[in-house]
């Protein structure tokens, strides 16, 4: 399985961690960010989410983030998985797995990667509420 993917189906956090850990026995710390579908946004009740991406470019940007993370942080490996399509409340959306010899490097790389993902990856979230649907325009 590829370390960086965009897919419709759910992923297993444990399997993704194992995939990254399998890269090296020097890994001593793994930091994971898991983004999940929440049921509230700006006091509005969310029923479901729907993610759209720019096929090709979105995958390329995630690959770039992994390469830059490996270049700029003292980490051994990074995995990134983002789901698209319909996502129910509570389901997994995105996973970043950063692995390093020591925890501090993994924490820093993981935080940078999710911020960079939100900044440069052409993926869009639509929130479906009881009142209608709205494309989200900001990324807090």
């Amino acid at each position, binding site marked *: 399985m590829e370390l960086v993917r965009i897919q419709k189906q759910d992923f297993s956090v444990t399997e993704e961690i194992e995939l990254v850990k399998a890269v090296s026995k020097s890994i001593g710390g793994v930091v994971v960010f898991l983004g999940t579908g929440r049921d509230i946004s700006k006091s509005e009740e969310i029923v479901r989410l729907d*993610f759209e991406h720019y096929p090709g470019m979105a995958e390329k940007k995630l690959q770039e983030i992994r390469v830059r993370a490996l270049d700029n942080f003292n980490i051994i490996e990074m995995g990134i998985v983002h789901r698209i399509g319909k996502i129910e409340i509570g389901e997994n959306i*995105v996973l970043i797995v950063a692995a390093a010899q020591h925890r501090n490097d993994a924490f820093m790389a993981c935080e940078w990667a999710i911020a960079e993902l939100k900044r440069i990856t052409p993926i869009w979230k639509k929130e479906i509420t009881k009142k209608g649907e709205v*494309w989200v325009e900001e*990324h807090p």
Partner: protein
Amino acid sequence: MVKIRFFAMLKNKVGQEEVKLDVPENISLEKFKQILKKEFPAITEFLDKKSIMISVNQEFATKNTMIKDGDEVALLPPFSGG
């Protein structure tokens, strides 16, 4: 012929995912935006907003990017992944 792709709310505004447009050879991004505004008045306000990014052949365009025949141009509303 340039392929133009629309995503998220821009796709809803234009009513199409993708259109092909004949444009003059090697035009600047600014000139291309003027053509887009004329062809798709529904998205003029989005094009005037700085938050809309444009990609050419799946790389972010800058004000110096030139658009030529065969290019794939995409209009990218603010991202909200993650």
